[in-house]
């Protein structure tokens, strides 16, 4: 398998706080990686750098050939829209847009909108009858499924999921994890931050962080 993500000696400082300290690892295309560790260990910072939401202080993070730290503002925007699909713990949907409009928003920022494709994406996550609902009219699980549909709509190279089930009840957690399993089986590359060991076990590999450093590397599940 080809290497999709290369992380070399990655370091990120917020003032005097070192969130990541010399992290190095690779991710093969099609892998599902669980990034684990206690709060403040640098998991979200790592995901944010890989997704082009943050820039490293030093080191390199290369995703599908793009050195994220070297991209300018417009390059980062293009990188996020073309290569990355984000799934956040807080869902982060635009509150005044319906489910389908939220999905189409990602299409719009990528290139052009395609309502049929957006409906299909929502159908895939089991929300065919909820496409015209606003986020406030959807349950947490449904909102997260809209976020999954939005993350997939532009066929990203890498899906970054930050505690995707952290705000969900058990039933909805199961639905979202099932979706992630399906995506993985289709060959999508997934980096998922999670606290829960049971969820981490679903991944191909676990990478554990502690105080911004790799505590355990390449733990094959």
């Amino acid at each position, binding site marked *: 398998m080809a290497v999709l993500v290369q992380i070399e000696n990655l370091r990120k400082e917020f003032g005097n706080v070192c969130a990541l300290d010399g992290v190095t690892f690779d991710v093969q295309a099609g892998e599902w990686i669980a990034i684990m560790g206690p709060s403040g260990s640098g998991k979200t910072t790592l995901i*944010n750098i890989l997704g082009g939401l943050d820039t490293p202080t030093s080191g390199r993070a290369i995703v599908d050939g793009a050195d994220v730290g070297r991209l300018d503002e417009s390059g980062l*925007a293009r990188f*996020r829209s073309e290569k990355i699909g984000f799934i*956040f713990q807080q869902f*982060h949907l635009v509150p005044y847009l319906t489910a389908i409009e939220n999905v189409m928003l990602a299409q719009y920022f990528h290139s052009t909108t395609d309502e049929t494709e957006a409906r299909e994406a929502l159908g895939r996550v089991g929300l065919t009858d909820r496409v015209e609902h606003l986020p406030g009219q959807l349950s947490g699980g449904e909102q997260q499924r809209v976020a999954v549909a939005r993350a997939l709509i532009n066929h990203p190279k890498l899906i970054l999921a930050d505690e995707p089930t952290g705000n969900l009840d058990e039933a909805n957690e199961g639905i979202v994890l099932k979706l992630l399993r399906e995506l993985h089986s289709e060959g999508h590359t997934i980096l998922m931050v999670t606290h829960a060991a049971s969820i981490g076990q679903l991944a191909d590999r676990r990478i554990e962080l502690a105080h911004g450093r790799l505590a355990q590397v390449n733990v094959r599940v």
Partner: protein
Amino acid sequence: MFARLVRESFVRNPRRKVLTAAALVVGMAVATATLTVALEVGDRLAREFRSLGANLIVTPESDTLPLEIGGVDYRPVDEGAYLSEADLGKLKTIFWRHNILGFTPFLDVPTIAAGMRTTMVGTWYEHEVPVPDGTSFETGLKATHPSWQIEGRWFRDGADEVVVGAALAARNPDAFAIGKTIQVTQSEPSDAARALVITGIATTGDSEDNAILVPLSFAQQYSGHPGQFRQLFVSALTKPADALANRDPKSLTPTEYDRWFCSPYISSISYQIRQVIPGVDVRAIRKVADSEGKILSHVSTLLWIVTLAALIAAALAVAATSATTVIERRGEIGIMKAIGATNAMVAGLFLAEQLMLAVVGGAIGFLFGAGLARILGASVFGTPAAPRVVLLPVALGIAALVALIGSLIPLRRAARFDPAPILRGE
């Protein structure tokens, strides 16, 4: 999608939108009102100034200098050049013909009236002038010299009647009394004396106070210059001179020339008069023209300052509400940027929303402004200023500009939001 985003966003948080729109409404109302009045004020003040009298004097180019002593022109009648009365209708064919409010020809003839050496001034009080387009134009002293006072009445056109200047009448009250007949001759003794009935005593404040005024046709016949006159006083609506007005037309580029020709400057109207009546010298009566220019320019400056102040206030209000809106919508901006929105896309979204507000605010402000202009016009000039539809696109354009300027700093800030801290909830 963009339109859907703008529409959905536009209808949210109506209170904030109402505040922004209200700032624009007030700004545009004041701007529309002052612009309407500013456009009106030139015309209105110019018309009021025209009640002071003529502002242009037309003489033959090759005329000799008048030999005047105590208001009496001692030039022999055969000396000097004359202009043709038949050409006068052409004045109402020039480009700025509607700005020609009146004109009056003068023909001075040295004469002896009731035994006193004086000047006979042949002129019109109310006279119909045929215009080449088949219409006619009524003009005369009534239009060009409205400040002249008359005791009794003015002479009738074509009648053997005379109005005596007040100073001359005071020198011989017995001879120059209303209702009396005086004899006028060109030399003494003479067999060719003509009798004229005095219909009025005129107080002019000019040299005509020492003259007698008769119908132009009488003076022409009397002096042997039928259909001719020596001087023409013209009352024209003009705009204050600026840098372009004082340029030599020959030095102007074709575009500058068109702008100059199509502006009612004293210089361009004079130029147009010379075009239709060749061989004349057209001069501005500087004292009147300069005062008009200064007052018009001061009033215009004041109105522009008020307009600018209102627009700056509106822009500041828009900036304040925009800044609050941007802060409130940080989360939304963060999400959009996380899923691939560029800075330009985020800025464009907010800008489109501000422009929609500008259109609404500008249109409502225009309506209020038109009403305000009516009130201002009525209180300052006595008649309400007519609304000018041409100002609607101007108001919308200015509103858009104000909204854009007011939103510039908040928009830059929105575009530079870093999505990571926003999504972390910081």
